[in-house]
């Protein structure tokens, strides 16, 4: 209310034409911003949005928290024999899930951005072309970190003690965020192709939900029927979950980590140029 009223009040303040004239004449064009600097500036823009609307972080944390609690206490006993044992198994998996779910929001945010005039300004600036996209994904990576950290802290509160300690946990978190960065290019592409933010949200979850459940995040694949087990074993999300478990427990398989990094690199190599092209096309 007050904001609106004072906004009204200050319409009465006017532009000072003499000062405008001075402001126009008092600049010279600086050298262009480097690619890194413009990407970081867009990352800063992402951070500012979180600062102004911190509630948006709730979206990305409440669901995974619910999943941890629900799966551990509701299904844990039935699936793994004890809730404590299941928590050890499921925590790295939910870490993966919560961060990957957050990547869908990157596509949604990009689609929302496109409906606004500011994108026209970004496109008309003499900057490194992919920087708005790279920058917003860098900003989003901070959200991925937040989502991941919430899960880990919750796990520790519930009694999970990862075998590899703080270093292992940080390594797992880093790996998951890196993979998420690669995957988010896919959803950015969707964000540029689809018409509305809700269409991006629906399509995104329609893809990520089954992929997450048809992995080893929740259950040990050896209990699955043959063909399904075969799929689950090659699902990159399973491999990522395995690698995270390994890192957290201190027995990581180097091949898993390599595959995860390779998949992230391939996704970035394919979808980053595609996204940049679509964004430029407008």
């Amino acid at each position, binding site marked *: 209310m007050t*904001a*609106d009223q*004072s*906004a*009204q009040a*200050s*319409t009465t*303040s*006017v*532009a*000072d*034409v003499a*000062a*405008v*004239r*001075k*402001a*126009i*004449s*008092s*600049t010279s*064009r*600086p*050298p*262009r*911003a480097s690619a890194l*600097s*413009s990407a970081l*500036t867009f990352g*800063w*823009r992402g951070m*500012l*949005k979180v600062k*102004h*609307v911190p509630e948006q972080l709730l979206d990305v944390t409440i669901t995974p928290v619910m999943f941890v609690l629900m799966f551990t206490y509701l299904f844990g006993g039935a699936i793994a024999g004890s809730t404590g044992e299941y928590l050890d198994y499921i925590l790295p998996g939910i870490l993966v899930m919560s961060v990957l779910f957050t990547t869908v929001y990157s596509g949604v945010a990009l689609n929302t951005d496109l409906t*606004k*005039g*500011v994108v*026209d*300004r*970004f*496109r*008309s*600036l*003499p*900057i490194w072309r992919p920087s708005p996209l790279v920058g917003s994904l860098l900003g989003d990576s901070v959200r991925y970190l937040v989502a991941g950290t919430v899960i880990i802290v919750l796990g520790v509160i519930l009694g999970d003690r990862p075998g590899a300690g703080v270093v292992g946990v940080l390594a797992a978190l880093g790996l998951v965020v890196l993979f998420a960065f690669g995957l988010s290019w896919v959803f950015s592409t969707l964000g540029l192709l689809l018409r509305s933010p809700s269409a991006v949200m629906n399509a995104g979850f329609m893809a990520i939900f089954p992929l997450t459940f048809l992995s080893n995040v929740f259950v040990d694949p050896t209990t699955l029927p043959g063909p399904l087990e075969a799929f689950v074993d090659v699902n990159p999300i399973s491999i990522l979950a395995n690698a995270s478990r390994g890192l957290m427990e201190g027995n990581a398989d180097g091949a898993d980590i390599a595959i995860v990094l390779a998949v992230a690199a391939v996704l970035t190599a394919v979808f980053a140029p595609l996204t940049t092209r679509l964004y430029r*096309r*407008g």
Partner: protein
Amino acid sequence: MTAHSSLAIEATGLVKSFGDTRAVDGVDLAVRRGSVYGVLGPNGAGKTTTIRMLATLIRPDAGSARVLGHDIVTDADAVRGLVSLTGQLASVDEDLTGRENLILIGRLLGLRRAAAKGRAAELLEAFGLTEAAGRLVKHYSGGMRRRLDISASIVVTPELMFLDEPTTGLDPRSRNQVWEIIRALVAEGTTILLCTQYLEEADQLAEGIAVIDHGRVIAEGTPSQLKASVGPGALHVRLLDPEQRPRAAELLASALGAVTLEPDPAALSAACPDPDRGAVAVAELSRGGVRIADFSLGQPSLDEVFLALTGRPADELPADDVLPNQSSRTEEEQAS
């Protein structure tokens, strides 16, 4: 590198289609450096699409253009380094504060952090936005948003500025301010391409005007040449009783000639070559029993220019007091 042409914009045969719609259908433009050039036309005429091509946001399907000596397709990056754009949808980030918007643009243009902050403060002060600097732009009024938009375009003073309907939807006071700012920019040597639906705006600011309709330039000249093609003015009459409009149209037609029915059901106007004949026509109306709420002799409206140029009223021409129409761009692009 830069061709030392005296032209800031030279466009020949620009074409852009969205699906089956030819939004721009062979536009030629020649804009002198340091001038304000007006592109006048109704919604959907192709103004925004033309600007978006020249500002390198979209590629033309055919034709070519040089902006400040650089080709808009093969040398788009060089163009971007010299121009700035103030779009029809205000090109500022509503989820950030006014100050953050300006710092963001400053940083992207290569200013160092401290310089970007200082520049933001200077512009906010000059544009009367200091008090609102820390508030999110979504809470700004239309006039404040437009001023912020323009200030974002001059964080680094451009050589050429594209202004797409900068005053649509603004109250007269804010509109005058925007005009003052535009004059200040020109005085400092910036070339301006101004798209507008208002003849008065083009008349106030522009040295040359192109009238465009259905993606084509249908007339070009100085404001006075254009107005001369319409006649020096028009008689606007508003009736007390809309029912009497057909009768009034008949009387005006016999006194003055071509009559335009305005969107307001009680209003009509007629081209009026001189005030004396206008006075006679008004007298005819009241002698004929038509009750008049008010009348005025005014500049020809865009609709009258269109009528004079094409023999038909402009399509989809909004009434003067409608809210800003933000849909022109989306309409055009949804056609794709």
